[in-house]
């Protein structure tokens, strides 16, 4: 098993959840399929989906919900 991280390409505000009153996109242990949304980045009033680029098992978020993030930050870990 190797640990894979997903890196952001744009700065902004990171969201673990699709909406404030909903659960996070992924919880530790959830299966992940490439192309699935694992988070959102709000940049210049647009919300961009952050998609998994591999299949695996979700490890954990590396960025807090609603935190300020930079391009290059690792958003989460996926076991592949």
């Amino acid at each position, binding site marked *: 098993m190797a640990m894979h991280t997903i890196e952001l390409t744009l700065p902004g*505000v990171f969201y673990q959840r699709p909406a404030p009153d909903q659960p996070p996109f992924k919880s530790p242990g959830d299966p992940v399929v490439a192309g699935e949304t694992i988070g959102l980045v709000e940049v*210049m009033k647009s919300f961009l989906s952050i998609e998994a680029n591999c299949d695996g098992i979700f490890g954990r978020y590396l960025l807090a919900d609603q935190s300020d993030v930079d391009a290059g930050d690792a958003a989460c870990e996926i076991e592949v």
Partner: protein
Amino acid sequence: MTIRTLFVANRGEIAVRIIRAAQELGIRTVQAVSAADQDMLAARLADEVIELGPAPARRSYLDTAAVLAALRRCGADALHPGYGFLSENADFAEAVEASGVVFVGPRPETIRSMGDKAHARACAVAAGVPIVPGSQGRIEDVDAALSEASRIGYPVMIKAAAGGGGRGIRVARDADELLKLVPQAASEALAGFGDGGLYLEAFIEDARHIEVQVLGDGTSVVHLFERECSLQRRRQKVWEEAPASLLPGDLREELCKSAVRLAQAVRYRGAGTLEYLYDRRRQAFYFIEMNTRIQVEHPVTEMVTGVDLIREMLLIAGGVPLRHRQEDIHCRGHAIEVRINAEDPARGFLPSPGRIEELAVPGGPGVRFDTGAYPGYQVPPYYDSLIGKLVVWGEDRPHALGRLARSLDELRIGPLATTIAMHSELALADDVRSGEVSTSWLERWLTPPSAGRSDAA
């Protein structure tokens, strides 16, 4: 009372614009900033800078309590809200005035009444301003639909009374289509919304967006002619002009007079804009809503009238009666504004925040560039993508288009992706040059005709 210290409750290019107008009147300026905006141009130009809170707008520029606290701390006697953020928040305007500070804009009750679209439409009707024609309430049966449709004129939209968001809308081009579509629409509305009620509205094909600029002092109102803003993407304007070159002269006068009637009916104070749809086929205009603030595209009006709208807003807020009579305001030549956004049109308008290394601003006669940026400025990811507005004036529309193309060639912003190249292409597009555009034109133009097909093969 004359304003001595002005609090600028906005950011970016409009904050710079407001500071410049204030300084020209000898007014001291206090610029409100979020933690991410300490280095913006407006903060460098202002006499004083006061921090509101963290970067996200909801915790700074949109945080009423934070703005009011900063306002009290700095002792300003007036506040300019700019556009967006709290500019059309009636409760905020009320709180500002309650704290003894002048709100540079209309009275809070005007913001409230025009913000309620149904109420604004009712005010328009009362003032004799046309709104999009429709059936009187629900249509009860096919016969009623036929008679209402012939009164409104085809094509008509059939809408579900309980619907919303564009769902369940059908367009009938003649009586035969209406006869076919009404029963379908009724059963679908019943199934979809639990209510089969329908109503009709005129379908405005190839609608054009036209708006009228007004200035009022709470008693009298004048208009500063109209703008056309039909080039839009996702309902966001990207290119604006003054005047609207397609409008026949008599209709233009009627349009501007209707705007004055409505603004006068609400005893409008400050700068405001009345938005209309123009139906070229019916040769008719219809009021849609009023914006009770300064607008992004105000410079095209300034270029053709020579009136400094922000200066007039500040003077009116300071208690000076309107300084222009209607007959003193003339429209000369043609102006075009294009919005330079930090977005990549080649990648679906993907936002492109980051540091501006190169910023070369065009010069020469009839050219203006309003921006909140400078070389070395970091465009933050937290707010809208507007970097600047390139505005040109020419003696007529072809002159302005030539000047625009030339200025766009001179304008360099890098290394961020911007909309400069898209505007250069637009300035050469046949439909834009001939003025044959509607509010849906730009999105069609941006969509390649055979998108996806070659990939599938």
